[in-house]
């Protein structure tokens, strides 16, 4: 069974659910809005020009997580997965198509978010803003980080077979745990998926991870979640 038709079907499914289109729109709006707010009142004590511009990603990623979780969770209601797997019995291939169908729009929207946020940040911050080279790194990193978080959430949803369960784990974790542990800023916390992935949004960093190695760690988390999701989908009765 070829991959492209399955991917096509999964892209149609994403395009035709308003909640998914809405959460993608929210990624751009929330990130840009919170970034603009943060840029307008930058932290004078610890100025990090790049992170001042990309501060909103911490909030925008919640929309990205909602996107990934909702896209997969839609399969776990009302016997939808049975219908999907009756059409595509090759389960690993189906899950790969699902992940790709989540990644493609998430990356496109993520990069758009990066570009909008950078432009807004530079406009508001002016001379205090990041350099273009740094800003470009941040914008690309923003797109990749948001995509990875959407996929991480998608994998976790396949494991838990529920979007509500996934969001009630991830959202408090990102909003609370990561912020609290983040301030202690050392050791294990640096290797959590969102912390590691956000190093790329900073002008300077003092942890063990740099921008690209941080994204690589985030990608490892994501790969682990997706593999666990694929394993669950393949092993369990639909």
């Amino acid at each position, binding site marked *: *069974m070829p991959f492209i*038709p*399955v991917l*096509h*079907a*999964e892209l*149609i*499914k994403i395009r*035709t*659910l*308003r*909640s998914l289109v809405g959460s993608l729109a929210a990624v751009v709006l929330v990130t840009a809005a919170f970034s603009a707010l943060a840029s307008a009142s930058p932290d004078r004590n610890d100025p990090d020009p790049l992170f001042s511009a990309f501060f909103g990603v911490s909030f925008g990623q919640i929309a990205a997580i909602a996107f990934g979780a909702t896209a997969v969770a*839609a399969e776990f*209601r*009302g*016997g*939808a997965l*049975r*219908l999907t*797997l*009756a*059409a*595509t*019995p*090759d389960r690993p291939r189906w899950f790969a198509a699902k992940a790709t169908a989540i990644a493609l729009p998430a990356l496109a929207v993520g990069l758009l978010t990066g570009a909008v946020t950078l432009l807004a940040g530079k406009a508001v911050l002016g001379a205090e803003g990041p350099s273009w080279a740094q800003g470009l790194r941040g914008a690309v990193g923003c797109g990749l980080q948001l995509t990875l978080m959407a996929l991480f959430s998608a994998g976790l949803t396949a494991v838990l077979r529920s979007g509500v369960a996934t969001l009630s784990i991830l959202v408090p974790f990102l909003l609370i745990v990561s912020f609290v542990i983040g301030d202690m800023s050392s050791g294990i916390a640096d290797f959590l998926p969102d912390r590691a992935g956000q190093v790329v949004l900073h002008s300077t960093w003092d942890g063990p991870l740099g921008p690209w190695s941080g994204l690589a760690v985030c990608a490892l988390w994501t790969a682990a979640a997706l593999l666990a999701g694929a394993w669950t989908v393949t092993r369990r*009765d*639909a």
Partner: protein
Amino acid sequence: MTSIDVRDLTKEYGARRAVDHLTFTVRPGRVTGFLGPNGAGKSTTMRLVLGLDRPTSGTATVGGRAYAELPEPLRRVGALLDAGAAHGSRTARDHLRALAASNRIPPTRVDAVLEQTGLAEVARRRVGTYSLGMRQRLGIAVALLGDPEVILLDEPANGLDPEGIVWIRSLLRGLAADGRTVLVSSHLMNETAALADHLVILGRGRLLADTPVQEFIDARVQPEVRVRSSDAGALGDLLARHGHDATRHEDGAWTVRHTRAEDLGRLLSEAGVPVLELAAREGTLEQAYLDLTAAEAEFTAQPQEV
């Protein structure tokens, strides 16, 4: 020729055995009714045929191949399992478009099945606004989407209005007449009797019967004749004299078992008993089914004391 072959199929969920060494074949060109009480294993068997659940042992194949090995399976096998499978926020048309794309079914089929199932007018409305009957029609549209040779429908009459039931009856009969293989599960006897040619009956996961509908009824239910005369006394005497197994009703009519209307009519005419009513009463699938399950209950009942 595409048959569904179930061979020694067993499925256990923990300690519960939902399907128990089941063997039967569903042949093309006729409607096979899949009967049994709720929980008998009908839906589980269908999921096993579709490769959705993994059998504990045994095999289920379609046209000699496991479902999962079929390339673009919707073009070979169409199934209705849950009417709730379509996402409530999506339109019926988009739901069908995605499924069609996955199996490279031409988009023209989407409009064709919407037309065929009477959903063309509401195709651009969100499924969440549909009645149960409309969702059921959408599920049937999905089953027909790939123009498959094999069709499996789990309780398709659920939620359909009387008009819908008549519609699905003629639809399924037409599909079988085209030479397709049609398996329809139900727990409704009259509905199944009206549309099936052949029966596969399950009870507690085991095969109880695999037989043509008429043979099943004839073997299990004795036909009866209802007769009424203006001379009730003469009629009673006559029946008694010929040793008929007959019961008298309050309205003066008699039900005579183990005889045919032709034979009883001749007898009455020769005896000169005036006849007001003489009617053959064919056995129904329901009677035959209850007879079968009663026998089955007796057979499986465990002695209470040792």
